């Protein structure tokens, strides 16, 4: 309904039967957006993840996005302590976590207060009346309870004392009232699973495992899950609240799993390592939000040839990665804006000495510390232009959580093939968002084996491969290839220090040509949706993919002549990009920054591209892009 609006069907037996034994009717929905919201301590992320799992198993397409409070552990009951998990699932292909909520689960007043504005008119709210105590209302700055005044009139409210219902359900396990109430997230999950006709077996099984050993806790959670489900199943639900049916999405056959951008990025790096034939990946980093999860994930992949190094700062991390590449491993370093800023001098050294290096930049809202947990796309200039001197690097960006896998492999391929640093631009949204991923057959993935120089005869450290312009990778330990490299300008062949003006001019040109030459090695820029020419092209990059795609899709269903182009290769651009954009009358460039890609497109192709810029630390809402499209046409 979030996208196509409701479409009730006759309460046919079939539909009725699918609704389980209750004999109650179910409305059919193409897609639904549900948000679980409560206090940081209420286990909303857990409930959300389980709902996601069951939904995936039920064959829906989906997209999820968690939202944590900025504070480590904010006081209970406060608005800034609210934690939520949003899932958008459906039979149609789902590309974003959704603009508007259809269902909001609010386990305390603060959760209601913070989230109700995102609920569509007519949407459903499940509240735990047991948590609407005077104290909690006060903490959320409610004068009167929203359940008593008329403020929730536009919505369908399901007020249930979930706390009490949970305690009843787990009475037998003799837990303290406090511990008993803990599992109310499972009660709410149970009800939601019933409401959307999802199974609960995987969750039951998982709970068993998770709390194994913890006396009674596992059972209690399972009991309250069942109770919540049963509550819907039985007639206890107000008839005004029907169950829903969201039929399977038509996903292409194969093995699937839900992945966050962080996971698929980590796996992509390791997969790239294998395809390169290199033995070891040295991942050197320094913790920073939202980049840390990647470091944590890599730290658990030691058995795949990954060595992680938590350095004393970002400079040391970048330097250690460079040292590792110099010694023949794949050096990778990862950070976010302020930390990337610190790495720029070292990256300049990698450009000068022409060593492979993957730099993962997880963008967040800035400037300076900014809003560390919020997403933004404003570090493109930093990646492309942010160094002293003419210091070109390759810059690429994944479009979706699953896409991170492929783009991470590309980063490894380009860094090793061209002996150059490669920036991979992720962001806070991609890092945390998740979606189903069609797991590839790893053996069928393209290989791009690296060959170290070993032959002493005719070896010169800067004698280049005529095709790629890459210099040979001569690794310490190789007899007969002893040589010196450094940051002072190098002779175009021997690599010895050279202050010769013409040599410097030539080296500068070669460094630029090498990076520009990568374009020959890149897929041509395609069109995601629509024709490859016409009235309007909506051109984006990075994590805005879903919103842009959906906005263009909707505009096209309204008959507008608009296409979606999404750029994954930002430096160099795909070689047909200018010509492709030239076939559109207008070019609109939505970005979560003040206008960076649009600036690059204007200078590169002299086209009057216009920006649609939103810098609020949040993803685009589909509707905003949709409106901009309408205005542009």
């Amino acid at each position, binding site marked *: 309904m979030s996208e196509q609006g409701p479409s009730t069907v006759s309460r046919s037996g079939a539909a009725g039967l699918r609704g389980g034994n209750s004999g109650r009717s179910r409305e059919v929905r193409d897609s639904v957006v549900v948000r679980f919201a409560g206090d940081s301590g209420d286990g909303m992320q857990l409930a959300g993840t389980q709902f996601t*799992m069951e939904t*995936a*198993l039920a*064959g829906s397409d989906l997209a999820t996005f968690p939202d944590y409070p900025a504070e480590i552990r904010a006081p209970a009951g406060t608005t800034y302590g609210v934690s939520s998990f949003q899932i958008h699932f459906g039979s149609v292909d789902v590309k974003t976590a959704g603009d508007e909520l259809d269902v909001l689960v609010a386990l305390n007043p603060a959760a209601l207060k913070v989230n109700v504005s995102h609920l569509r008119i007519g949407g459903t709210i499940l509240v735990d009346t047991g948590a609407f105590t005077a104290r909690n209302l006060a903490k959320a700055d409610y004068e009167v309870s929203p359940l008593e005044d008329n403020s929730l009139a536009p919505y369908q409210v399901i007020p249930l004392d979930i706390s009490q219902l949970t305690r009843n359900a787990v009475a037998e396990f003799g837990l303290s009232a406090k511990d008993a109430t803990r599992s109310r997230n499972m009660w709410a999950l149970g009800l939601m699973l019933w409401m959307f006709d999802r199974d609960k077996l*995987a969750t039951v099984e998982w709970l068993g495992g998770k709390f194994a050993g913890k006396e009674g806790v596992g059972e209690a959670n399972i009991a309250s899950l069942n109770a919540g489900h049963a509550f819907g199943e039985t007639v206890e639900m107000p008839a005004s609240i029907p169950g829903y049916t969201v039929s399977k999405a038509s996903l*292409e*056959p*194969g*093995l*699937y*799993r*839900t992945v966050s951008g962080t996971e698929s990025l980590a*796996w992509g790096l*390791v997969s790239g390592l294998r395809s390169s034939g290199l033995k070891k990946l*040295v991942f050197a980093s320094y913790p920073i939000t939202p980049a840390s999860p990647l470091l944590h994930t890599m730290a658990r992949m*030691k*058995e*795949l*040839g*990954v*060595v992680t*190094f938590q*350095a*004393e700062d970002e*400079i*040391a991390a970048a*330097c*250690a*990665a*460079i*040292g590792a*590449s*110099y*010694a*023949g*491993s794949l*050096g990778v370093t990862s950070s976010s804006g302020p930390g990337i800023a610190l790495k720029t*001098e*070292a990256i*300049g*050294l990698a450009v000068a*000495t022409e060593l492979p290096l993957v730099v993962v930049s997880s963008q967040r809202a800035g400037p300076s510390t900014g809003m560390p947990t919020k997403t933004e796309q404003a570090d493109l200039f930093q990646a492309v232009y942010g160094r002293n001197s003419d210091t070109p690097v390759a810059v690429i960006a994944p479009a979706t959580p699953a896409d991170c896998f492929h783009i991470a492999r590309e980063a490894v391929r380009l860094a090793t093939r061209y002996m150059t640093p490669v920036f991979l631009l992720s962001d806070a949204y991609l890092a945390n968002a998740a979606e189903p991923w069609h*797991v*590839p057959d*790893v053996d069928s993935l393209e290989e791009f084996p690296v060959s170290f120089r070993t032959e*002493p005869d005719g*070896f010169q450290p800067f004698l280049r491969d005529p095709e790629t312009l890459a210099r040979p990778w001569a*690794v*310490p*330990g190789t*007899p*007969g*290839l*002893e*040589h*010196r490299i*450094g940051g*002072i300008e190098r002779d175009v062949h021997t690599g*010895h*220090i050279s202050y010769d003006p013409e040599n410097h001019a030539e080296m500068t040109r070669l460094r630029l040509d090498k990076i520009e030459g990568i374009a020959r090695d890149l897929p041509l820029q395609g069109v995601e949706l629509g024709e490859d020419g016409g009235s309007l092209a909506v051109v984006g990059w990075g994590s805005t993919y879903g919103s842009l795609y959906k906005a263009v899709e909707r505009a096209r269903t309204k008959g507008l002549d608009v296409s979606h182009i999404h750029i994954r290769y930002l430096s160099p651009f795909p070689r047909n990009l200018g010509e492709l954009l030239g076939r559109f009358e207008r070019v609109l460039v939505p970005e979560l920054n003040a206008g960076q890609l649009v600036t690059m497109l204007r200078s590169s192709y002299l086209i009057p591209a216009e920006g649609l810029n939103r810098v609020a630390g949040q993803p685009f809402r589909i509707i905003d892009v949709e409106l901009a499209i309408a205005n542009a046409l």
Partner: protein
Amino acid sequence: MEDSQTTALKAKDFASDQEVRWCPGCGDYAILKAIQKTLADLEVRRENTVFVSGIGCSSRFPYYMATYGFHTIHGRAPAIATGVKLASPELDVWVITGDGDGLSIGGNHLMHTLRRNVDLNIILFNNETYGLTKGQVSPTSRKGTLSPTTPRGSVSNPISPAAVALGSGGRFVARSIDITQAHLTEMLKQAHRHRGTSFVEIFQNCIVFNDAVFSEFTDRAVAPEAQVQVEHGKPLLFGADRKKGLRIIHGAWELEVVEVGLSGVTEDDVLVHDETNRTLAMLLASLEPPEYPMAVGVLYRDPAPTFDSQVLAQVESESEGRGLEDLLYGGRTWTVAG
């Protein structure tokens, strides 16, 4: 490029084809000679030896060696060398740095490398100035030093490289002097032998911007009286006729200079050097002429497991673990039927 080596190498075989370009008379020449000799004596292989340096006159060093060499950026050599070791622990990695490179901009990397005990040989050329940038004060410059940035004299207290290394948990800390070839070569060999971070401070004369700052204890004439060469298990004796010694002031935490023979002092009163005692090493590092002799030699040595070996042990211990497939296909997956 030099050809792979077959027979034992001589010092000159470790010299690259590049013209050495330090100022005539610079102490760096002597250090270069000593290191080339050390490598020859140690019979190491050129291809397994890497010199990593930062920026400074001293950091030009790698260009003059026929081994692998990486002239990096200012202050970051220890971090880059750490990466080299994590990639290839079998390599013999030397870090060449200066008092500015290693203690000013690079102080933090030096400190953390020492604390982690990465298996590197760190050689710090201390000339108490920024040579390459034409003579500004460095963290080791003494108070009152006149320089282009301190026309009225520096007001900052200097730090002692050896003391910083000890304070950072360094497990091999030695000192030598550019002009004492034999001693210097010996210290370099000991540093090479030690597993973990070996730190060697070398007093090096910058003839152009800071000539003779160390003459107080390096001048041939005064050296015997102004230097104490410490050796584990040996009494801390010095002086031309080795009649001077260092003695503990009992009860206090200090040392005093005594004359053996005078006022009933015997050799037994002289403190015996214990290179495994960090507190003693700290005290020795802090001694300064004219009151005290300058202590050179291995001030501290107490080996411990290296960072690189421990990190890689964790990796290897898991290496028979899951493969990429297990990771991708394992866990919570589902299948969409065709």
